[in-house]
């Protein structure tokens, strides 16, 4: 029985280490968490926030005494319901996991077993810990499905994970976590992988479920605006240490530490849009579909991009924004319409394009680490386009690589390093240098900052803007993140279901009156403001009632 005198969870001086085994070298042990302490009362929500590598997931999982890979808890105490779970042994942990503490993962799509129907997985712990009969557990699961606003709550449990959408799956995972009536749920970035308009619904469902079941929660995220909507307290972490720990009000409205202030005021870039100019890239009435399908992924898309400017293409997954990039580069031949670039019409397919067209149109991808050959050094990677397009060799090539490394604010020492030795932000910088090496007139940036932490992403955006000012290169910037758009765009195209919903200069697009979809999109972006979620939902309900 829980002792009313003690908090539900009391973590004291937690130290977590990880051992890695790099090939050909002695094992390396690094400390991930350096003596972090926290307490959580019954029914409260604590937000753990920080950038990647801050140790937030590691700390969250430590409350189930679980370490991923070679991660071990080497010091401190994790006291749950009055007893130290680190001393419970394997059997004690099995009794605790999935019973007292449950877990909601970032990617529900990966966290569900693809071979089993949802219901079986949702009620699995409730049955394995002997809490209820199968019939009772199924009734409870259906109640939770209903509570979380899932469609067809009676029958959705019979479906397989691939048969429901990502947002629904995340809610089913929340139901799975709540089913055994735990004392504590760990939410590990539960809405990060979702589209912004889906995120708001899932966030509201999770918040309501926490409220109605009275469960305590650790809510892990890198997005301060999201955590401000659900948490009672916030702990800001960096490099495995506590930076700031206080009530949500204090941390959001009066942050004490410089690092927290930086997080709160991130996206400080002030970009003034450039004046109208004749287009460098002109896309006219383009329609495209993938081979073997009878469905247009792009429908009658027309947009222009002037030289040296940035066109942001915004949309959610499935809106056709990456397909547009494939059509422009010629990877996917367009069906109808035409694309002109620098005064000439581009051949619809890659094979028909002149080498000069290829050189002037470069691309940077979201996943920098898979866009580089892991067995080539940075120097080789950047040097390749120099050789290929300009025939540079030897000393000339080395010097140009050096210049490019300087441009991306990385030193000469990086030329001999391999991609695996770089951080996420550095990898993306190398990809930018590789694109620049071709001296292009247009770079297509496909979600280039989406996989990066906010502060690092900011650095990349600033670099891109700098390079644009110096080199006069134009960007077609594909993103789902409206904050990024505001920071860098001169023009914006909002895409929805393969069509351009709204297009114009930044000022025009971001000013009312909005069309219905743009309004939904803009109002769904979490704001760093307490009570924002309730305001938006109340506003939407009123509008819904008015219709």
């Amino acid at each position: 029985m829980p002792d009313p005198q003690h908090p539900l969870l009391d973590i004291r001086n937690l130290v977590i280490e990880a051992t890695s085994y790099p090939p050909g070298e002695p094992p390396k042990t690094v400390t991930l968490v350096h003596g972090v302490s926290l307490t959580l009362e019954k029914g409260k929500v604590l937000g753990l926030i920080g950038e990647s590598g801050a140790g937030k997931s590691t700390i969250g999982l430590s409350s189930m005494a679980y370490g991923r890979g070679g991660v071990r808890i080497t010091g401190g105490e994790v006291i749950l319901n009055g007893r130290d779970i680190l001393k419970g042994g394997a059997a004690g942990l099995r009794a605790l996991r999935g019973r007292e503490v449950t877990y909601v993962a970032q990617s529900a799509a990966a966290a569900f077993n693809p071979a089993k129907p949802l219901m079986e997985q949702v009620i699995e712990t409730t049955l394995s810990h002997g809490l209820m009969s199968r019939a009772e557990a199924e009734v409870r699961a259906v109640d939770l499905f209903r509570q979380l606003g899932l469609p067809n709550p009676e029958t959705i449990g019979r479906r397989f994970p691939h048969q429901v959408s990502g947002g629904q799956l995340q809610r089913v995972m929340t139901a799975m976590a709540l089913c055994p009536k735990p004392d504590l749920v760990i939410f590990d970035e539960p809405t990060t992988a979702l589209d912004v308009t889906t995120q708001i619904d899932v966030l509201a469902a999770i918040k309501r479920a926490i409220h109605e079941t009275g469960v305590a929660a650790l809510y892990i995220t890198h997005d301060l605006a999201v955590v401000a909507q659900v948490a009672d307290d916030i702990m800001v972490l960096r490099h495995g240490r506590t930076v700031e720990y206080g009530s949500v009000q204090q941390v959001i409205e009066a942050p004490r530490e410089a690092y927290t202030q930086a997080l709160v005021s991130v996206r400080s870039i002030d970009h003034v849009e450039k004046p109208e100019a004749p287009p460098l890239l002109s896309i006219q009435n383009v329609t495209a579909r993938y081979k073997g399908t009878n469905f247009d992924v792009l429908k009658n898309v027309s947009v222009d991009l002037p030289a040296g400017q940035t066109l942001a293409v915004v949309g959610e997954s499935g809106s056709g924004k990456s397909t547009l990039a494939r059509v422009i580069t010629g990877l996917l031949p367009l069906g109808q319409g035409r694309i002109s670039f620098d005064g000439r019409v581009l051949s619809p397919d890659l094979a028909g394009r002149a080498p000069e067209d290829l050189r002037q149109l470069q691309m940077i991808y979201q996943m920098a680490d898979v866009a580089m050959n892991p067995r080539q050094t940075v120097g080789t990677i950047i040097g390749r386009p120099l050789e290929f397009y300009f025939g540079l060799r030897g000393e000339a090539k080395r010097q140009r690589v050096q210049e490019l490394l300087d441009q991306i604010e990385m030193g000469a020492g990086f030329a001999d390093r391999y991609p695996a030795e770089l951080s996420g932000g550095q990898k993306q910088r190398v990809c930018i240098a590789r694109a620049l090496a071709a001296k292009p007139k247009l770079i297509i940036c496909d979600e280039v900052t989406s996989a990066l932490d906010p502060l690092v992403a900011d650095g990349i955006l600033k670099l891109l803007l700098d390079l644009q000012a110096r080199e006069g290169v134009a960007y077609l910037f594909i993103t789902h993140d409206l904050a990024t758009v505001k920071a860098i765009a001169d023009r914006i195209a909002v895409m929805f279901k393969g069509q351009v919903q709204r297009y114009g200069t930044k000022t025009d697009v971001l000013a009312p009156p909005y069309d219905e979809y743009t309004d939904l999109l803009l109002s769904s972006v979490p704001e760093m403001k307490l009570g924002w979620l309730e305001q938006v939902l109340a506003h939407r309900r009123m509008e819904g009632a008015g219709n």
Partner: protein
Amino acid sequence: MAHPVMKMVAQRVALGLLLLLAASVLIFVGTQILPGDVAQSILGQSATPETLANLRAELGLNEPALSRYFTWLGGILHGDLGTALSNGEPIGPALGKRLANTLFLAGAAAVIAVPLAVLLGLVSVRYRNRWPDKVISAVTLATISVPEFLLGYIVVFYLAVEWRLLPSLSTVYDGMALSERLYAVGLPVIVLVLAVLGHMMRMTRAAILNVMQSAYIETAELKGLRPFAIIAKHAFPNAIAPVVNVVMINLAYLVVGVVVVEVVFVYPGMGQYLVDHVAKRDVPVVQACGLVFAGVYIGLNLVADIVSILANPRLRHPK
């Protein structure tokens, strides 16, 4: 509209039949059309021109190859495998009896080997890199590395000669009771199990270890499930497709590749039958055996394909 899985399965079956047809062409070309005279090779160097001419006429070798092929194929489709040259009897009944013997031996070995291999694979994953895993790996590797005839003689020496548990000769005859028959094939079954266990066990282990990296295995661990339950309930169902493929290749081997074991234990199966008739240059029998072996191989791989399709929840339950 028919279920998409039905369509895929139908495609596989059609492809299998096509493949079998191609195999029949290869077998026919290999035995009858390649350079060299069939009649000559049957009768040997000492044959007189008259006997050669007679045999050619008897075999229909003076007909064009294409019409001979279709006559042969037509006969097979009507269930007529032709007549053996060595004794002039129809091939069908003799081969049928031998095939039944081989399938009995292979079936008995498979019934033991497949569940045992999967179970050992699961145990290996449960104790990976610890001593049970290492022992299982070492033993199964050793048994597939030792030649089968040697394995055969080792089990004969201990189980038949020293301890007198099982008969060293696998004599079977019509009207034998099932228990007697199983007793008779005890030793060859043991040898075959040891010969195929290693591949299947290692594939099961590798396929499950691959699945164990998935995020949903972490979910299962965080649910507080027992390690063996995680492996058997959450990992194995997602590893069926690769495992089934290796199982089927090994089952095919049990049918097609057991010549040595049959010889060691003097077991009247397909392997011995084929070898005997190759020695006698009995071309129609060799052709019939070839076709049966091809059918077994293609059939078992077809089953593997179909099981893999059925094991995929995305295909079984489309959106």
